[in-house]
């Protein structure tokens, strides 16, 4: 099923994954169901065909462009940043908010998303999520006490948290950097969200989310805390001694709400991506701290070049990614062997 905005506009971008068409069609003709539900099923069936086609074609198009070496036409020199208010509904994007923003959540979402755009442009030469200036949309106040933030394939979505375990998710600039990086991954490696690829997908978002947080704070790799989600902890979580969701420097730490494995050998094909990101997160952190200085200057550049210098590889394995970063380190920093040494040390730390 899908959700229709109350204004009647069907947000096709949220309709990416739907009940199989034959099931929808069967329900659309089931006279035991209400007219409203049957009409909804019928409309979903028609929309789902188009959305599925769009999504598949988008992936094919990105792959084709990569293969031809062409570049997307620049839509804009710099991305527009927009903020919408879902008003506690689960129907994105919601109502467009116009600056100046009185709502603190809206202010944060706009300010930090703009800074992430600046981060990618200034440090990596990337123009927005798709490197062609696409608009960066965020929807805030999604759901009621929603303990989550996500990238839905086209935009960011932020919940307010329940005020106990989590607070407003826009309070975490690493969260914002994390979610936007999912969009970058979608437009580059197109990593699947399962198995090794899923863990890499999550890790890239934690790596760049953490780098963004360090960059904004002016911290180098050895000054940073490498915690993910430390500023969205609610009073209940803090009172129980939890300081973060994940710790890239010590993934198995007991102060994490979500402790993770520290070695690749601990992963299985069915491992949840947020669990599987532990080893590559640790590898990146060790590499950055070994090299020293700012994480984005050398090691971050290696990770970015690996993410963008290869055609779409939805099922990339962690060993493959690790080896590619080693190759990039040698190739892109031939005069500085300490870069390769740091990358190599990071991966060996986690059994790769």
């Amino acid at each position, binding site marked *: 099923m899908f959700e229709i905005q109350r204004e009647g506009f069907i947000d096709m971008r949220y309709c*990416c994954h739907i*009940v199989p068409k034959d*099931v929808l069609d069967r329900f659309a003709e089931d006279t035991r169901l209400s007219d409203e539900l049957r009409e909804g099923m019928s409309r979903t069936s028609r929309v789902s065909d188009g959305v599925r086609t769009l999504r598949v074609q988008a992936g094919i198009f990105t792959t084709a462009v990569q293969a031809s070496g062409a570049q997307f036409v620049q839509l804009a020199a710099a991305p527009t940043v927009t903020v919408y208010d879902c008003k506690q509904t689960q129907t994105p994007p919601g109502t467009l908010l116009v600056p100046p923003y009185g709502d603190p959540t809206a202010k944060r979402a706009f300010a930090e998303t703009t800074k992430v755009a600046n981060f990618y442009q200034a440090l990596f030469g990337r123009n927005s999520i798709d490197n062609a200036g696409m608009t960066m949309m965020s929807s805030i106040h999604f759901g009621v006490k929603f303990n*989550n933030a*996500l*990238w839905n394939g086209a935009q960011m979505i932020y919940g307010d948290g329940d005020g106990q*375990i989590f607070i407003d998710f826009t309070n975490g600039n690493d969260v914002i950097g994390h*979610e936007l990086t999912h969009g970058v991954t979608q437009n580059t490696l197109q990593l699947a969200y399962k198995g090794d690829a899923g863990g890499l997908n999550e890790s890239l978002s934690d790596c760049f989310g953490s780098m963004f947080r360090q960059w904004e704070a002016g911290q180098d790799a050895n000054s940073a805390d490498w915690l993910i989600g430390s500023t969205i902890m609610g009073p209940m979580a803090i009172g129980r001694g939890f300081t973060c969701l994940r710790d890239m420097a010590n993934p198995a730490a007991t102060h994490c*709400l979500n402790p993770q494995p520290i070695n690749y050998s601990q992963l299985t094909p069915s491992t949840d991506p947020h*669990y599987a990101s532990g080893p590559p997160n640790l590898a990146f952190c060790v590499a950055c701290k070994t090299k020293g200085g700012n994480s984005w200057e050398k090691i971050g550049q290696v990770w970015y070049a690996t993410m963008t210098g290869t055609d779409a590889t939805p099922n990339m394995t962690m060993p493959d990614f690790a080896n590619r970063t080693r190759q990039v380190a040698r190739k892109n920093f031939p005069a500085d062997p300490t870069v390769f040494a740091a990358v190599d040390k990071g991966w060996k730390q986690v059994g790769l």
Partner: protein
Amino acid sequence: MALVDVERIGGFGGFGSPGSHLRSRGIVETSDLSHDDQQALEALFDNSPGGGDLPDAFKYRLTRQTAQGPQTVEIAEHHVPEAVRATVKDELV
């Protein structure tokens, strides 16, 4: 159909991951659901659309008892009826 165990998993916080302190669970008595929601829930078990692949999105793990034993499906959040989603409660364990 009678009782269905509902667990919300995944999300940015990794609810339900091995070792995670984040859990989100509930139970739904299918007779408490509207006829439309009962039909929709039945369809999810009979022809699972799967868990989807949206990064950091929640999924729902639904378990019902059958004559052949427990049947569990994992479903992307937007497929699950709101009345079923509303049964879960987030907690620290």
